């Protein structure tokens, strides 16, 4: 499969009161076309920073990011970022949010928007404003808004971490269903190891800040994955050990 994303020796530090704060320290990896790669790592280690660099929102100090072989410039609709803090526009209805990135005739855009709203189970709420939705519905709206423009790459920064366990699981299944149909390339940040194994073809484990790649795990399990099965549990324990969490 052709390589979609190449991250090559990326370094990044921020200025702080006590001198430069080294956040990303020489991270290199690749993501194949249509592949799902999850990144796990301790809180504050630099995951969001790394993803912002890959998605083009921040500049690396050193190193480079190439998408389809071309040096990555400004953010564009080829890769949509689903940010950790959510970015559904509160002043637009669900439908208007979904139509935001679409071009063409109003009628066609509306039909497409409603189709994707229905796909994430938001039919009947197209006219609602975000503050009239629940947290889970808001996340689904955000996902639908990203999917509707058919991006080649989905950058997801802890997309489901604010949800309760049940909704989290539902959203994962929803996402897997969509991915099976549309085959996006996915870069997923999560602090939930089980979520990483559930969704990704590969899991990268980052070190404490400054982030380096500490380990890489292949998840060679067919979908649907049985989370309580021994293969998943074994992998989960191995990743947790890598993160320095020992389960008795």
């Amino acid at each position: 499969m052709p390589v979609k994303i190449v991250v090559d020796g990326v370094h990044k530090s921020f200025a702080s009161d006590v001198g430069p704060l080294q956040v990303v320290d020489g991270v290199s990896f690749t993501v194949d076309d249509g592949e799902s790669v999850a990144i796990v790592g301790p809180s504050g280690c630099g995951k969001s920073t790394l993803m912002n660099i890959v998605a083009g929102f921040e500049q690396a100090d050193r190193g480079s990011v190439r998408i389809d072989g071309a040096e990555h410039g400004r953010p564009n609709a080829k890769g949509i970022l689903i940010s950790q803090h959510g970015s559904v526009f509160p002043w637009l209805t669900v439908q208007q949010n979904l139509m935001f990135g679409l071009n063409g005739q109003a009628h066609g855009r509306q039909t497409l928007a409603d189709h994707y709203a229905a796909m994430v189970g938001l039919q009947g709420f197209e006219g609602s404003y975000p503050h009239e939705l629940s947290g889970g519905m808001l996340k689904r709206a955000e996902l639908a808004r990203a999917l509707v423009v058919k991006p080649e790459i989905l950058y997801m920064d802890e997309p489901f971490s604010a949800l309760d366990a049940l909704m989290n699981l539902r959203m994962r299944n929803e996402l897997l269903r969509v991915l099976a149909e549309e085959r996006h390339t996915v870069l997923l940040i999560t602090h939930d190891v089980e979520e990483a194994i559930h969704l990704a073809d590969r899991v990268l484990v980052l070190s404490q800040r400054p982030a380096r790649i500490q380990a890489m795990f292949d998840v060679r399990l067919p979908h649907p994955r049985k989370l309580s099965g021994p293969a998943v549990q074994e992998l989960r324990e191995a990743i947790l050990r890598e993160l320095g969490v020992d389960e008795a």
Partner: protein
Amino acid sequence: MRRPALIIPSVAVIAVLVAAWWVLVRVTDNAIFPTPLQVVTGMWELVKDGSLWEHIGASLFRVGAGFLLAVLFAIPLGLWMGWVRGAYSTLNPLFQILRPISPIAWIPIAILWFGVGNASPIFLIFISSIFPMIVQTTAGVHTIERRYLRAAANFGVSRYTVFRRVVIPAVMPQIVVGMRIGLGVAWLVVVAAEMVALRSGLGYLIIDSRNAGNRYDLVIAGMIIIGLIGLSLDGAMRLMEKHRSVRWRYAS
């Protein structure tokens, strides 16, 4: 709107004050200061001869004209200053100097420039209500959260779409607040301006009633009407805050 249980106490306070006023005037046997009943009678007089509506109409017209003019200037200017850094750093100091000058201080200049016709109070209202609206609009643009601007940039839409679908609706709640403040100031100012010049308006009514024979019943009637109209203007602006497309900002 408000539940009766919430209205009763405020009505009670007003009732007590009116009663106290009545008793005090009676006890002191004051010849000039009117009782509440005299004020009501005076107001009725104005209603009957139709002059009350003329004064109210004149004041509202001046406020409407000056305020709308200010809105037309303040919103584009505020958006521009919020969006373009250079525009902000160039114009903000000037506006910060002009803003604390009381509109009353502008009265002599207004009369010099515009005479004693309608143009003077309209200018004064314009000058007093434009600054709060500029400030609110500019602050609104400055406080758009970066995550929303990033999301907008991510979808690769045109600058026009960003402005129409992100910047303007994001700032709308602040604009509405600015308009509420601006209209409040405008109403304050029109009355003050009419006290100095002109032959009509609620401000003129008050000064004229005093000058033409110490008609303090009409003075107080005018004051009460000014208060009630101010209350309804504010209530109308509050209705705008209830609109679904701006409520997100006030909801928490």
